[in-house]
């Protein structure tokens, strides 16, 4: 952990892709360390092989050398020393991994739906893209991903990030681009015939250019607005209240629900996150909110993955303080309402929650923020969202 709190050494290893995210230098530094170890051991072994092979080559056809059975000192040292070295790699590797999988609270959300063989992105402002993802430089971007068919894997070499996209669940990935430009985006998990064609580019833009790009897509409704429309069309509103005041409907009131704890039938609570909402839409009785009748029909097969994500965006927007205000959505979260209890955790994903206990040692919150002050674009982008 100490290792990573020190500012990352800027190493550039030959035959590396561009470093275009805050995460990339961490991986490259780890790579350099691993390379050093690998080269040290392989060169040592090779040299020993060559020296011994030459020095102790057979001189007489019938010679029999003196047997040497072994040495406890040597055995112990070449067991223990490599083990210690391996443990340093483990610690470094694991702390870097945590960085990659600790999804930050405050981030620009993009929904990703993969299908054979394309990547579909939807920004919160409503813009949709296929095989291209426009993001502003210097902003944290969080991808919430699922797939309509088989397993895919989103991979951006320049960012050194990769995450499988698994049917039936949401996986998350985040990055903060540090360079403008166009970077390859690949599908890394074999997914069928056109697997190698399932790629595109992440286009990182200056914040102002990004805003212009967003404006160019004007007319697009925000994801939440699209979700709201669906919410009306599919009759969700007849059971679920979306306002803080008023009577509880036949289903739980959704206002301010997102990110809170929800008591469920049986025992226990769940955090209302993307996965829980998705499950409640597709499999409403799986984790039934406490005190409600199991009357909601399933919407499996009636909503596309993209529509579900839009509904989630809408439910998420209900009762959240306006995004972009100081303090934002994350620190205190929305007010409790309806049947929910307990503290809110903002847009917490399961992974993030699991990571939280380690938060104090987290380099991301400890050092990255002062190092990289939030750029104007982040607020700007969020503001643009709201203006729509």
């Amino acid at each position, binding site marked *: 952990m100490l290792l990573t709190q020190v500012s990352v050494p800027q190493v550039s290893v030959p035959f590396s892709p561009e470093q275009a995210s805050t995460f990339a230098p961490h991986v490259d530094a780890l790579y350099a360390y691993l390379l050093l170890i690998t080269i040290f051991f*392989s060169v040592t072994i090779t040299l020993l092989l060559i020296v011994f092979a030459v020095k*102790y080559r057979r001189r007489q056809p019938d010679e029999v*050398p003196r047997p040497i059975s072994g040495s406890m000192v040597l*055995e112990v040292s070449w067991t223990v020393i490599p083990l210690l070295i391996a443990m340093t790699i483990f610690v470094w590797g694991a702390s870097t991994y945590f960085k990659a999988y600790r999804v930050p609270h405050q981030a620009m959300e993009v929904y990703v739906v993969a299908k054979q063989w394309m990547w579909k992105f939807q920004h919160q402002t409503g813009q949709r893209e296929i095989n291209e993802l426009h993001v502003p430089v210097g902003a944290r971007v969080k991808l919430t991903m699922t797939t309509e068919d088989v397993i895919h894997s989103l991979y951006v070499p320049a960012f050194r990030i990769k995450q499988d996209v698994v049917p039936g669940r949401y996986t998350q990935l985040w990055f903060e681009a540090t360079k403008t430009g166009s970077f390859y985006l690949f599908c890394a998990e074999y997914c069928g015939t056109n697997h*190698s064609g399932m790629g595109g580019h992440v286009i990182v833009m200056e914040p102002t250019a990004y805003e212009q790009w967003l404006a160019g897509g004007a007319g697009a409704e925000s994801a939440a607005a699209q979700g709201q429309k669906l919410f009306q069309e599919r009759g969700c509103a007849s059971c679920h209240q979306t306002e803080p005041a008023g009577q509880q409907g036949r289903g739980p009131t959704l206002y301010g629900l997102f990110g809170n704890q929800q008591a469920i039938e049986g025992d226990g609570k769940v955090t209302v996150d993307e996965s829980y909402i998705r499950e409640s839409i597709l499999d409403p009785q799986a984790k039934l909110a406490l005190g409600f009748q199991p009357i909601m029909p399933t919407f499996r097969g009636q909503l596309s993955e993209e529509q579900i994500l839009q509904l989630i965006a809408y439910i998420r927007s209900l009762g959240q303080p306006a995004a972009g205000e100081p303090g934002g959505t994350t620190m205190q979260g929305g007010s409790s309402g309806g049947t929910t209890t307990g503290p809110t955790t903002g847009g917490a994903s399961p992974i993030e929650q699991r990571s939280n206990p380690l938060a104090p040692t987290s380099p991301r919150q400890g050092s990255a923020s002062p190092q990289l002050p939030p750029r104007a674009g982040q607020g700007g982008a969020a503001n643009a969202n709201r203006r729509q």
Partner: protein
Amino acid sequence: MSNQTAATGARAHEWRSRFPTVNYLNADYGIKSWLLTRDHKRIALLYLVSVTFFFLIGGAYAGAIRLELLTPQSDLVQAQTYNKLFTHHGIMMVFFFLIPSIPATLGNFLVPMMIGAKDLAFPRINLLSWYIYMLGGVLTFAALLFGGVDTGWTFYVPYSTNFSNTYVVLAGLGIFINGFSSILTGLNFIVTIHTMRAPGMTWFRLPLFIWSTYATSLIFILGTPVIAITILLIALERLAHVGIFDPALGGDPVLFQHMFWFYSHPAVYIMILPAMGVVSELIATHTRKPIFGYSFVAFSSLAIAIFGFLVWGHHLFVSSQSVYAGMIFSLISFVVAIPSAVKVFNWTATLYKGSISYDAPMLYAFAFIGLFTIGGLTGVMLAALGFDVHVTDTYFVVAHFHYIMVGGAMMGYLGGLHNWWPKITGRMYPEGWARFAALVVFVGFNLTFFPQFLLGYMGMPRRYAAYPADQPIWQVLHVMSTAGASILGIGLLIPGVYFLWSMRYGRFASANPWPATGLEWRTPSPPPTENFAVTPVVTWEAYEFRPVEEMRVIGPGESAEQVAGVHPQVDQT
């Protein structure tokens, strides 16, 4: 019947005039005597032929893959064909070449001889395992010929269950059946090593090849059934759509990956452990020294087999498995690397003050140590979580496991074949050609796979028929890799040619040409059907080199040439 007997009798006579002894090769003639044999040495040769056949098929697919990747576009073959090519390459090489290669050929041939037994404990089961292997191989090969499979050898769901329109069930059935051949072989080895060691052959006098074969057999027994049931589930899922891996029916696609890698990671050790055993033998023989730290090398094999079962999750670091599970699997993966490192250090230390020959088997042993070190260390790199996120499912992984499987297992197999060729056939291979071929293989191998490390770190995903054309360096590296593959291919064909040549024209081999210490060298080359004229009694430690006269054939004869028969009635000592 009598005609046939007369004809074979005549041929037998001709052969005996060449070979002064009755041995397992000329004891009996005719196709039937091979197809119904229960002699472990003949079964080993049956395996040798069939394993080589499947290797050639797998190699042909590899060649086609490399040709396609010469250019960034998928122009030689279509994407769908390419997907079948790498799938077929993987299935053939993993299930029908690498897994059975050393255990079923060298293992079958050597295990009884090395421990001083007349045969394996269950000779009929041994023959049965070959038939099962052939049945599985033929079924799978038929599936590939009829239209092929495009799921990758990993058969990931839901692609393999709900999406692929190819012959997944038939190929899976072949692999399922083949699994039982592995299980029976492992069972036979374990029982044989436990119960049939010659008097005086204690556990710590066993050659290290036996230790590694024993460890391999444990994985055969405990791992293979799991892949069998997993493949069965895939077939059921395809045929009946029961939903065990289908999220729409409440199943979990990642569960498949856990079950698959629970076998398939230990399967990597099935491939490398026997090669490690072979290399221990080669180094001891060709330096004329006992292996440094015998017991550490022996126990490291068992440690690898045991810890190997606890690391499967390191294939799933980006699969949405829990972060903490990832950490535990990463930690254990570092631990499992240590026994391998211990072996490498001990082999290197064995060379110290040895009498090192440059015979071909030793050249392969050198290649093994060097390449396995690189393969192992890159494996350590991949076990580092943060690093793995970037390179998993890229060519870095491809390069890594080819360094282990080709640089490791394949080198061990070739080295072993050369080392025991005189014992198997009674003829020497041509040494000059063999050294030349070893060099070609080494150069070709490195040229093929080293560039793939670079490609991988640069972000080239695996299983891609086409790659970005605006990255000229990617194409340069791919061209280098293809060039290397051509050299490697030639290097691998040369031994095929001279092995065949030597069977007729090679110099006769003495009983112990190197000389080496194992019991298999204390009987004529080629050995008689029951291996030893009399059951040997072992009074010496493993790898105890003594003057050549003291390592003569056990039993009545002075040397291979002088042993007239295999029966112990003549006592000349």
